[in-house]
């Protein structure tokens, strides 16, 4: 034994697992219940209109109940023994290519399952009230159940191919839900955009899966992660970057961030569940799950940190300038996921805290999104914060719950965000001062834009439209929000108490104590002071001074931030414009050269046309010419290779 073995031993997580027994054999039900719900609601159609939404709630709640029972059973097992797999059937088996349809539940998937089913059930209940006036409510619940099933498959899969199925599934559900009000032009466009951008990320994941198969001869977690240290640096870096691309698409990280802001066109419960609490964090799950690959690929890790840092600042700046309450929250989501991605890029000192922040963020961001939904419910679906103000007077409970989320995201002790965000800042400083400073600046901007948001919405003077009669939302909506608000307040402390979350996750993702060059307390108080100053600034600017009902022109930076920091423009210039020109060229080409047959149709319907026939003959000639040219090129290419 080398004397250094203790110090040098990789802090990566364990990947071996036991065969499921007892309570754990129910894990397939976690997915099966919501899937059955989706099938009932979507296949039986209008017959279920009157009671369908309760089926949706029931299936989600049932899944949550099973998750809790599995969680309790898992706590009975010892730390290194908490991973279980369940073999459902052999999916693909060809020679060396083996893909079992296996589920895996371990400490990492467990917390995700609890988050998805728990927050999911609360949002299902909330939606019963929120969507009560929508005559397509049943379809909405069908999609929502489909999403829950797909997301659970994503986190319960025991191999990357199955994970990919869940990955596509949540993408599909997200697409369907963003475009739920497809008759709205903006919603339809947003859905398409989300679909296209996500496909770019999906390409990354499929490349990663194929590279894994070629490198390791397997796509199971055990086969890939278990032998990751033995693979070459280049392969691991390539796989890591491909996984990062996938994470960027799904988690709205730079440069694939642009779809998330538009995705707010979907119903608000969707924004809360999919585009804040669960689906958008799938990228963080992917990186944390693949920790063995990233630990062995420092280049890929650096790329993860850089992407996270850029997005966290970018999202925060966008959040400062948006007047649409949901879009401001969406910018904040981008920024907070940037924190998680950055933490995941830090390696073993960060994985645990990335997941920790993911959980607390799931609670407090869902609280705030549902609060925003409640505000919209009371204000005739108005989203412009310049027409809010002083809502604290009429929507007391909404204000209180929203403030719980607000304090949590700011990181005011003892609210949840304090514990989780501080840990990330600490780890970042332990990694390097530069990265640490970025997270600190991010925290300050966060305090500013969140204060702006609550000030414009709940404080100050009323700037309501004449026809608005704000009122508190029904209990069906406010009970779930209140539960989430309580969680936003206490979850941070509960999870970090006795280092519980660290001990819980360590066997899967590994852990190393971040080592700071200075006293941790200085950092904590410093952060807190910065946040308070920044929040005070926001309060002075937006609560004490009157807010104009029409947005002022603003500085260059404000304008840039309002335009999503020109994310769309950049994408447009780089991808869309050339694409559009290409399409236009193709259409022209198609009309002039290829589509003669279609043009001929008009002549055909009118009867015989000698002219049409002559042109058609011409086309066959030009095709033959192309073929001849092609043949010449083929032979030329062959000859060139020879030379």
């Amino acid at each position: 034994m080398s004397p250094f073995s203790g110090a040098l031993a990789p802090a990566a997580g364990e990947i071996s697992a036991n065969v499921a027994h007892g309570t754990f054999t129910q894990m397939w039900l976690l997915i099966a219940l919501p899937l059955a719900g989706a099938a009932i609601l979507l296949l039986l159609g209008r017959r279920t209109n009157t009671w369908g939404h309760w089926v949706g709630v029931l299936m989600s709640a049932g899944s949550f109940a099973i998750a809790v029972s599995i969680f309790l059973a898992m706590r009975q097992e010892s730390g290194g023994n908490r991973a279980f797999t369940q073999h459902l059937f052999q999916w693909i088996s060809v020679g060396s290519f083996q893909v079992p349809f296996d589920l895996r539940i371990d400490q990492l998937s467990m917390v995700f399952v609890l988050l998805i089913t728990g927050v999911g059930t609360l949002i299902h209940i909330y939606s019963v009230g929120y969507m009560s006036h929508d005559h397509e409510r049943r379809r909405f619940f069908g999609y929502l159940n489909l999403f829950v099933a797909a997301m659970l498959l994503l986190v319960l899969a025991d191999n990357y191919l199955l994970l990919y199925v869940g990955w596509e599934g949540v993408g599909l559900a997200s697409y369907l839900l963003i475009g739920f009000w497809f008759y709205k032009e903006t919603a339809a466009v947003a859905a398409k955009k989300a679909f296209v951008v996500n496909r770019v990320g999906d390409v990354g994941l499929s490349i990663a899966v194929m590279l894994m198969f070629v490198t390791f001869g397997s796509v199971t977690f055990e086969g890939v992660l278990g032998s990751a240290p033995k693979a070459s640096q280049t392969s691991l870096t390539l796989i890591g970057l491909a996984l990062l691309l996938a994470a960027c698409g799904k988690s709205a990280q730079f440069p694939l961030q642009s779809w998330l802001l538009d995705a707010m066109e979907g119903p608000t419960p969707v924004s809360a569940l999919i585009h804040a609490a669960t689906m958008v964090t799938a990228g963080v799950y992917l990186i944390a799950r693949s920790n063995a690959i990233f630990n062995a690929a420092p280049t890929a890790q650096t790329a993860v940190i850089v992407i996270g840092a850029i997005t966290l600042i970018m999202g925060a700046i966008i959040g400062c300038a948006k007047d649409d309450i949901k879009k401001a929250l969406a910018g904040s989501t981008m920024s907070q996921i940037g924190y998680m991605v950055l933490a995941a890029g830090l390696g073993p000192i960060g994985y645990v805290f990335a997941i920790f922040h993911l959980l607390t963020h799931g609670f407090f961001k869902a609280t705030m999104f549902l609060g925003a939904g409640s505000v919209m419910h009371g204000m005739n679906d108005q989203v412009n914060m310049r027409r809010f103000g002083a809502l604290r007077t009429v929507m007391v409970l909404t204000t209180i719950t929203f403030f719980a989320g607000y304090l949590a995201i700011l990181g005011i002790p003892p609210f949840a965000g304090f514990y989780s965000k501080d840990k990330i800042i600490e780890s970042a400083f332990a990694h390097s001062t530069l990265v640490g400073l970025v997270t600190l600046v991010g925290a300050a901007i966060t305090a500013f834009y969140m204060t702006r948001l609550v000030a414009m919405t709940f404080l100050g003077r009323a700037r309501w439209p004449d026809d608005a009669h704000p009122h508190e939302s029904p209990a069906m909506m406010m009970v779930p929000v209140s539960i989430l608000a309580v969680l936003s307040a206490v979850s941070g402390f509960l999870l970090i108490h006795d280092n519980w979350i660290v001990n819980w996750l360590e066997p899967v993702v590994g852990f190393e104590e971040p080592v700071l060059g200075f006293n941790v307390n200085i950092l904590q108080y410093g952060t807190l002071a910065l946040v308070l100053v920044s929040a005070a600034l926001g309060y002075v600017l937006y609560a004490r001074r009157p807010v104009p009902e029409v947005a002022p022109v603003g500085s260059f930076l404000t304008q840039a931030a309002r335009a999503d920091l020109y994310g769309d423009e950049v994408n447009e210039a780089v991808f869309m414009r050339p694409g559009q020109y290409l399409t236009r060229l193709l259409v022209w080409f198609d009309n002039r050269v290829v589509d003669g047959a279609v043009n001929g149709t008009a002549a055909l319907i009118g009867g015989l046309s000698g002219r049409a026939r002559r042109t058609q003959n011409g086309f066959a000639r030009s095709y033959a010419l192309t073929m001849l040219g092609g043949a010449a090129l083929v032979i030329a290419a062959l000859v060139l290779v020879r030379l």
Partner: protein
Amino acid sequence: MSSLLAAASFDVPTIEYGQLSPMLIIFGVAVLSLLVEAFAPRGSRRPIQLVLVFAGLAAAFAAVVMIRGTQHIAAMGSVAVDGPALFMQGAILVLAFIAALVMAERQVDPLGDAFAPRASALPGSTDEIAFTRLGWLQTEVWPLFLFSVGGMLLFPASADLLTMFVALEVVSLPLYIMAGLARRRRLLSQEAALKYFVLGAFSSAFFLYGTALFYGYAGSVDLSAISDALTANAGSMWLVITATGLVSVGLLFKIGAVPFHQWTPDVYQGSPTPVTGFMAACTKIAAFGALLRIMYVALGGIRWDWRPMMYVIAALTMIVGTLFALTQTDMKRMLAYSSIAQAGFMLVGVIATNQAGLSGTMVYLVAYGIATIGAFAIVTLVRDSTGEASHLSQWAGLGRKAPIVASAFALFLLAFAGIPLTSGFTGKFAVFTAGIAGGATPVVIIGLVASAVAAFFYVRVIVLMFFNEPTSDDGVSVVVPSGFTTLAITISVALTLVIGLVPQLILDLANQAGLFIR
């Protein structure tokens, strides 16, 4: 004189009738079917033809099953009866069976079936109107269909280039005629037939020229003899290279690879839709079988020479097919460009030149073929008063009018797009992993990007069907077909689901097929 003859005595050739039985059965039935056309009274032709066709296809399939496991070059070195050949013959027979069901449909068109009452009548002429009014129905499509199927069985099994050329012609000539048989839009159909014929003949010439050059190089047209000559490095390399290019052009034309693809949309659009489905699915299998055999058996030794060319062709095919499909407004043309793009994906398997590439391409071909026939079968059902309503806008809101048909179509589109848990994913994954393992990573990445873009226009159609309001009073309706088309669509849906959910079955079959015999 007599001594001269004695000196020229030769071994009596042998023919393994058993191993050739699938082809012999189909050709035999085709001749019978021709005689039915000649002698049976008009009224009884259809039932006799249908019995002949379906029994013949079933018997040939049974023969394929009986001789499975054979590894032998039969008929004096002309026909290779080996695993891949038998797999593809089986696949062609199953797909031809489904396609024949769609062709046999007589309920969706109020005027009769999908075929012209008299194809030789001038489009729009008084003759044609008269024949249509008389309600004439022809059954001549059946012998043509059977001859074409017979050629398709021989095509991937040809062990020498001349047999392959004959097979190519036997596949193609009936197809040229079938393309011109559409009952509706006669002018478009005749144009399709003529274009297909002229360009097909042109491409055959390339193939034949290449064959001649190969003979000049190797002194033989046997694929294994060409391979041996390459190993021995006999003769001019330039001859081989030119020959390789020319033969490839002939085959790339048949599979619709860019830049030899331009006939595809016109012909797919103009042909009677049941024929389009048959042509798209079965011809592709046969032609890919032949291409794979040439590239793996004869030219495997110089793969470093032809792979870069194939890289470019595959990449171009994927890109052009996908981009053009994006701009299409006609369903049949969109499916045609999609089939071009799919051919590009399959070419990745050809480039891989390994066992996984071979079996992956075969699985892809089957998955694609089934979904294609199903999709075109559904295209025949969506009609307005002038025939098939193939403009995309006419499909809006189809999910409301006919949820089951629209769902089946959506399933086929998802399979084309390669969404996990459908057959298309199985095929794409098999081909792309083989491609990476074979060192063709750049092409695979282009393929992945192209399939991501392609997913967009497939999903666009799904959105159109389910999320858009139907245009009011456009007269488009989904016709209720007879048992024939219903059965065809049901089989296609079932097979697509099975290959997607339990890919094991087909992957095992393809894998057991092993490699080409030399």
